[in-house]
């Protein structure tokens, strides 16, 4: 496993350089994980992109960097401490200086000058790609092949100069620093994999799950979902509407859900806060809606480009009044795909808003994913209980009761367009025919019906997953992108440590949580927020006890496996008491 990183000023093509490396390494059969560190601005400011390349699956970033490519001095100053006897390749144009305490070998190459000689300074990144291929001891041909295809549209001259940029970068490293190249990645594991992020997975899952309308308002880090669907929806006859705000986005989704289409919106904390009132409407009027929250640093504008998991309690209880919501928390990119499909099924089956809570790291950082885990045509579509036109005609006019009471709390719905199925859907408390009612006994029964029906979700879905030994000394508990970090930490901690993660946060999978955690000597809840919201939730459901500890982080930087290992090791070490 190798960790490669490139850094420079934002707007200098750092992202595309990292993408090239990740894509080509993935095609060669390696597993990649890409981590971009960026700010909420377009040009200027330090940015970097770390790609881990491995012969086995990777789903977290790490502290250590083996190869650092620096396009300016700031990159060295901010990142050299990650190098532990690693290589630092710097553009000689800025006269790089290696700090005294750096544990790295400095390699300089005139990246800018080489690019200029080939025609344009823009190709500096391609020189860096070629140089990186050499540093990683990877063959240059796949990179040349990729670049040739990538620039084909721009004409032969552009293809040729970029191809040369890659080759010259590669050759120069081989010639000047060949004696320093000691890394060996190992043999790749060929497979049919795509490099995608969680947002891609959600957009794919939405299409596979029958979603054909997306109404949204751009916000980091959710916007990719909208942009992907704009690209893909014309192929399946769907539509994306860029709304005027998030109030409009969620309400349009509810309108569409009432109409019988599968629709979604995607946002992050600030937008989700605006949607809270309407989510209550969908709950009370029993209208399917799917909402994605790609969490970021909060509250308010918070840290728009930084990782956090601090919306959890707001997602469960953020609106006024008594409601239960279905909140799904995928713990990987593959689970993001599965949950996107499932969200649309659950929303219609239970006639309710379903929220998918991801987070910035899970939604934006790319990873190698087996194509077989993204099988769109094979996904099930469950529409839930409905009255067909035949059913309604059999009933006759003015008989249909949209909100009739039932054993499981679910009332079959009619869809607009069907004769004799007309009704009023309203956010006002209503009787079984949908008309406004303030009758006390009706109110109690309606509230109970809505709360009770969602308990059925725990029967159709495993809300709490576990991987690890049967008699663990320690179970690490997390959600979202933290799950990948915990899995890597558990590997390092040895055979007596397991990882458990929530797939459903609401309705709370209490029985599963109790049974999974029963055998653990210690439980460490690892979450990225300051209030320990996940543990609070577990406590509220009476699943915690003296075995529990928390590891919290809220500085915007994703957890590193090393941090979890350090804390877990301290828990596992017996403390002498005198």
């Amino acid at each position, binding site marked *: 496993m190798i960790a490669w990183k490139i850094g420079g000023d934002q707007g200098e093509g750092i992202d595309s350089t990292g993408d090239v490396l990740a894509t080509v390494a993935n095609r060669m059969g390696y597993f990649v994980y890409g981590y971009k560190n960026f700010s909420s601005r377009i040009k200027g400011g330090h940015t970097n992109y770390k790609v881990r390349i491995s012969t086995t699956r990777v789903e977290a970033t790490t502290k250590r960097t083996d190869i650092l490519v620096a396009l300016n001095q700031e990159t060295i100053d901010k990142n050299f401490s990650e190098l532990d006897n690693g290589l630092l390749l710097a553009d000689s144009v800025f006269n790089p200086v290696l700090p005294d305490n750096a544990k790295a070998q400095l390699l300089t190459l005139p990246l800018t000058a080489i690019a200029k000689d080939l025609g344009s300074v823009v190709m500096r990144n391609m020189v860096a790609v070629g140089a990186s291929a050499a540093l990683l001891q990877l063959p240059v041909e796949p990179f040349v092949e990729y670049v040739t295809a990538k620039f084909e549209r721009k004409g032969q001259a552009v293809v040729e100069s970029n191809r040369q940029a890659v080759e010259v970068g590669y050759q120069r490293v081989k010639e000047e620093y060949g004696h320093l190249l000691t890394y060996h990645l190992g043999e790749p594991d060929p497979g049919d994999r795509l490099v995608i992020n969680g947002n891609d997975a959600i957009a794919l899952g939405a299409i596979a799950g029958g979603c054909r309308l997306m109404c949204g308002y751009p916000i980091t880090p959710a916007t990719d979902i909208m942009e992907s669907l704009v690209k893909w929806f*014309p*192929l399946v006859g769907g539509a994306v509407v860029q709304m005027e705000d998030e109030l409009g986005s969620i309400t*349009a989704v509810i309108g569409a859900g009432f109409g019988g*289409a599968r629709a979604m919106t995607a946002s992050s904390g600030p937008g989700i806060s605006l949607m809270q009132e309407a989510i209550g409407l969908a709950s009370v009027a029993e209208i399917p809606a799917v909402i994605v929250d790609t969490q970021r640093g909060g509250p308010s504008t918070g840290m728009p480009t930084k990782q956090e998991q601090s919306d959890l309690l707001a997602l469960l209880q953020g609106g006024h009044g008594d409601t239960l919501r279905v909140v799904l928390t995928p713990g990987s990119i593959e689970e993001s795909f599965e949950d996107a499909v499932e969200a649309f099924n659950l929303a219609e089956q239970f006639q309710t808003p379903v929220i998918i809570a991801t987070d910035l790291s899970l939604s934006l950082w790319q990873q190698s994913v087996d194509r077989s885990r993204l099988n769109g045509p094979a996904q099930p579509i469950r529409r839930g209980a409905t009255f067909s036109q035949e059913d309604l005609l059999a009933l006759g006019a003015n008989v249909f009761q949209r909100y009739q009471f039932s054993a499981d709390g679910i009332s079959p719905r009619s869809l607009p367009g069907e004769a004799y199925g007309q009704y009023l859907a309203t*956010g006002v408390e209503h009787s079984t025919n949908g008309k406004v009612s303030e009758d006390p006994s009706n109110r109690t029964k309606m509230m109970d019906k809505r709360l009770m029906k969602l308990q059925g979700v725990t029967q159709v879905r495993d809300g709490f997953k576990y991987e690890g030994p049967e008699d663990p000394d320690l179970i690490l508990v997390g959600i979202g992108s933290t799950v990948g970090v915990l899995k890597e930490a558990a590997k390092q901690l040895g055979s007596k440590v397991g990882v458990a993660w929530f797939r459903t946060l609401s309705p709370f999978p209490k029985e599963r949580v109790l049974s999974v955690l029963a055998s653990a000597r210690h439980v460490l809840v690892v979450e990225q927020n300051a209030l320990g919201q996940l543990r609070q939730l577990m406590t509220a459901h009476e699943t915690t006890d003296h075995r529990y500890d928390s590891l919290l982080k809220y500085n915007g930087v994703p957890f590193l496996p090393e941090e979890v290992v350090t804390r877990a090791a301290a828990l596992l070490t017996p403390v002498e008491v005198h």
Partner: protein
Amino acid sequence: MATLQEFRTNEKSWWCPGCGDFGVLAAMQKALVAVGADPATTAIVAGIGCSGKIGNYINSYNIHVTHGRALPAALGLKLANRDLMVLAAGGDGDAYAIGMGHFMHALRRNVNVTYVVMDNHIYGLTKGQTSPTSQEGFKTKTSPKGSLERPIHPLMLAVSAGATFVAQGFSSWQPQLAALIQKGIEHPGFSLINVISPCVTYNKVNTYDWYKQSLQNLDNDPDYVPNDRTKALARLHETDELVTGLIYQEESTPYEDLIPGFKDTPLVHQDLHVDPHTWNQILATLE
């Protein structure tokens, strides 16, 4: 063909006797019959306020949403099932205060929805506070010394914002109002029909008599042709929007016809599964 009776419900009205909203309801039902609408394929989206109760009294598929958000819900519903005849309804508070943002964007988006605003220049359901269309100096419970703000001019705003159909009716002038709503429904795009709908309980200034004396009926002006944005604005400005009739209309292609790849078959009638060929096309963009 559905009859007027088929568009009625047996729900007892919550409106005050004499409320202008009765006239709006009646005109809407007449317009629905006139265009040959079917209760099964008609949908009314309403907001919050006295006006928002209208869905209780029309037999169709009705959704009563949060305050100010009827138009986004109507958009979503129309895109879900473009075979539906979708009408939205709200009051001056719902449309021009809390819902103003959606109003402006619905105008420029031009989805095929008919928006009937019941404008009484006052907040009725909360028992008499200033509305965005209240006249300057208008005294209410929240403006005891008179409203300090200038009123919104929704019609001029609509014409300026790129509306393709703008009309105003008066709840007492039934034939004209029903005809305007009918034209609005038939218009292939977003249509605004602002309706003067007096509040007999809380607005003692803008009464039926006051409107009858103040309103100019464009139907009586053979020289007015509603196809010129500049002339429409001039007339609205001259009359301080105290006109009824069709103010502006242009040829229009509705939003849903412009969406790339969006089909004539409503979304609700399409197969939700994705076929393997299309799926591979999608995945290819990620390779």
